[in-house]
């Protein structure tokens, strides 16, 4: 059978994001989906028709080389890049063309590439900015400080005076403060040492524990396979591969990553 068959768990190494039990898994309606999504920067086309779907509680990874369109895709979802009205649907409603503020208020938040903390704001103030569009939910300052104690220590320092990994925690926390239903993470591991990357991803279970849906864009393919349930591979603005992380082989991923062939597992 293909990659869409049910995953059989290995009890010795439980998958961090197993699919829900029962046949109902296949018929769940998508929380977020895109249909033939195209994106442009001026005259240059970055996305050539992306079909993507996300069900509640999943952790999906998007991998691909630089310039493949991964960040552009996330920016389209959050409204930073213009998308046509019907191309993106979130909780059944079209959100293409809405301003970013509206989208985050509906429950779709992003940790931007490169962290992009506000230099003039302290750690705590950066986190509070995330609460501008605060929705009801479990995430607040205390909970974040419990998850990342180092931030509590440095809460009044300027955001950009922290180390790379700590800044990533702030960026992640900032997005969580709005209590989103879907969290998009653009290159969490960018520029960070492996030990720091592991520390950050160690926080993932706490984030997904209450059913938050997460999409991560990752350069680190191994990490992506480890933590995610499904993987999309982007190549030059198109989806070159899609399937369950456990079922895809290294070879399939390499081919799709570098674009030998459009592979459909």
């Amino acid at each position, binding site marked *: 059978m293909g990659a869409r068959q049910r995953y059989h768990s290995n009890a010795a190494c439980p998958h961090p994001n197993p699919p829900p039990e029962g046949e109902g898994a296949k018929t769940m309606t998508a929380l977020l989906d895109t249909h033939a999504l195209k994106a442009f920067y001026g005259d240059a086309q970055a996305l050539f028709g992306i079909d993507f779907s996300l069900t509640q509680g999943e952790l999906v990874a998007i991998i691909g080389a630089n310039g493949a369109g991964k960040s552009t895709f996330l920016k389209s979802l*959050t409204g*930073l890049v213009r998308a046509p009205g019907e191309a993106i649907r979130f909780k059944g409603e079209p959100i293409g063309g809405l*301003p*970013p*503020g509206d989208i*985050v*208020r509906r429950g779709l938040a*992003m940790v*931007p590439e490169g962290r*992009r903390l*506000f*230099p*003039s*704001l302290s750690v705590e*103030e950066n986190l*509070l*900015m*995330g609460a*501008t*569009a605060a929705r009801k939910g479990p995430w607040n300052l205390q909970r974040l400080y419990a998850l990342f104690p180092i931030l509590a220590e440095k809460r009044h320092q*300027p*955001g*950009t*005076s922290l180390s790379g990994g700590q800044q990533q925690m702030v960026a992640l926390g*900032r997005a969580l403060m*709005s209590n989103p239903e879907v969290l998009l993470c653009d290159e969490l591991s960018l520029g960070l040492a492996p030990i720091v990357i592991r520390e950050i991803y160690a926080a993932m279970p706490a984030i997904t524990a209450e059913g938050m849906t997460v999409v991560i864009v990752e350069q680190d393919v191994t990490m992506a396979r480890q933590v995610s349930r499904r993987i999309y591979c982007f190549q030059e603005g198109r989806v070159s591969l899609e399937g369950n992380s456990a079922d895809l082989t290294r070879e399939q991923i390499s081919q799709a990553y570098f674009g030998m062939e459009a592979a459909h597992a």
Partner: protein
Amino acid sequence: MLETLVQGVLLGGLYTLFALGQSLMFGVMRLTNTAQGDFIILGAFAVIAGVSLTGDVAPWLVALAVLPVAFGFGYALQRYVLNGTLGKDPLPSLVVTFGLSIVIQNLLLELFSADPRAIETGGLNTQGIALGDAMSLGVLPLIVLAIAVAATGSLQWLFARTALGRSFRAVSDDREIAELMGLNAKKVYALATAIAFVLIAIAGALQGMRTTVSPSDGPLLLLFAFEAVIIGGMGSFWGTLAGAMILGVTQQIGFRLDPGWGIWFGHIVFLIVLVLRPQGLFPKTRG
């Protein structure tokens, strides 16, 4: 010499009020309002008109009534006119504000003629508090200084301790990410300008009380405001106050040396500061 210093500091109080609005608008949205001085004069004339239209109600009350009008005006101006000029290119905002400057000056000329006017304060502008035998401090300048310090402190507090101030700082750091957080940048900008215009109205009212105003006075006030901001260093309201003080003292020293060279001396000191320390004397470094 001490008297010159003191007069300079008092003058600096007024210049602070000229400059705070400019510092605010530039700080939040990198917008240079070349009509700053003209709006100040417009504020003064608004109070003058208000006083004569209401049959000589106390100018303080009229000034207070002008403040919310200024707030609304600034909000609308930013929202519907100036927001469209923001961006990498400084030309559109410069041309539009320059155009506004011309429009205001000529409108005031039409409505009020070129004669200098003043806001009557019942002698307050001539009252003084004697300090020993040698010196007398004007009551009105002292009030102006007090208002200037209060305004600076309030702005500083607003920026550092309130959610709105946080929004200002965030949107000026990174507009895109601020919008990602849910801020409506257009409205935040409009609020910043609204507050700036309240400061402009206060400055205008006080200028009109302290001395006479005429429709073409605007540009010179703009230059003073600008010099105060640059000397003090951008990014800091207390810096703007310090810069205004230095400018005031410098001008007073210049007037002392030769009445014809007072303002010239202020300009020269400004240019020297610009060459020697372009970031200003008390800049706030940004990440």
